């Protein structure tokens, strides 16, 4: 297996990309904390990565395999956090209606407001 060069190279490529993403996460954290920004480090890191790629400080092919793997499987990454709901079984039993109604109303409202506003402004502009 060790002698299987293409496999090994692909794994190394993914690992390199992951390390670059983690470096940007760390920089984003440090940046957001230093400037006391209300935004989480991961979002600051995302904006910094986009800038780094645009300015070609970071070659796209170095991060692409890891980034695409993470984006494709992002939904899986939410599962363990979601299982955490079991801790709040009692609370959910008592307040399920306001939680459901509030979430659903907000989901529909955001979809329509953002979709309509964006489309209208594109046509107007």
């Amino acid at each position, binding site marked *: 297996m060790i002698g299987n060069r293409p496999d090994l190279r692909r794994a190394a490529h993914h690992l390199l990309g992951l390390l670059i*993403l*983690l470096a940007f*996460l760390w920089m984003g954290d440090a940046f957001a904390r230093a400037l006391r920004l*209300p*935004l*989480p480090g*991961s979002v600051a*890191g*995302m*904006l910094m*990565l*986009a800038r780094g*790629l*645009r300015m070609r400080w970071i070659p796209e092919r170095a*991060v*692409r395999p*890891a*980034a*695409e793997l*993470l*984006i494709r499987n*992002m*939904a*899986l*990454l*939410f*599962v*363990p*956090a*979601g*299982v*955490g*709901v*079991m*801790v*709040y079984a009692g*609370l959910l039993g008592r*307040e399920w209606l*306001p*939680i459901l109604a*509030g*979430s*659903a*109303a*907000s*989901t*529909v*409202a*955001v*979809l*329509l*407001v*953002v*979709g309509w*506003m*964006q*489309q209208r*402004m*594109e046509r107007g*502009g």
Partner: protein
Amino acid sequence: MADAAAALLALAATLAVYAAARGLQRRLKSVWLHPVLVSIMVLIAALRVLGIDYEEYDRGGRILTFFLGPAVVALGLPLARQMEEIGRRGRALLLSLLAGAAIGTLSATLVAALLGASGPVVRSLAPRAVTTPIAIGIAERVGGLPALSAVVAIFTGVLGAVIGPPLLRAAGVRSRTAFGLAMGAAAHGVGTARAAEEGEVEAASSGLAIGLMGVFTAVLAPLVLALLERLGWLM
């Protein structure tokens, strides 16, 4: 050693359940059988039956949660590719998402408060529309329950991913940017995963919406909650 083995077992079980849930959805083609929601319910049922508490399970589970941070950073890649497109529509994008963040936080907290939800629950609903790691951060700041915010974010992510495309089509939204933006704004990562099935423009604008919704909501949520407090609708 036994700890590591148990953590790996929890991780393997999560991956196996998720893979099976994805297979089930592909076979039955029902949008409601979202693999994330099905996996969560199956895993909770299994932990209950086996008498394993969440903390024990999460020793393996948080290996996956760890990758949420780099996954959000990874969205910088589609963002960089679509930067020019986004730059041309920058003002419209910012206005749409600012309105979305305001309406999203206000409608979730207001409806819950009027239906008699307790203070911590209302506060947990404030970051409803934003991606889970950001929602957890906001919940900590405004006095919500981070785990509840995480779960509400996931649930509405699934809801938005399911009802988003038919709702947007019925509402006459044809623009690919508007479609992606609305999906990312209402349903963060799960919505983006759904939007990405439509194409790269949708994926990129959806990814951008996740980030900007996170920023705008982080700023607006404390203001909205202070307003509800002043009106006497929130303890």
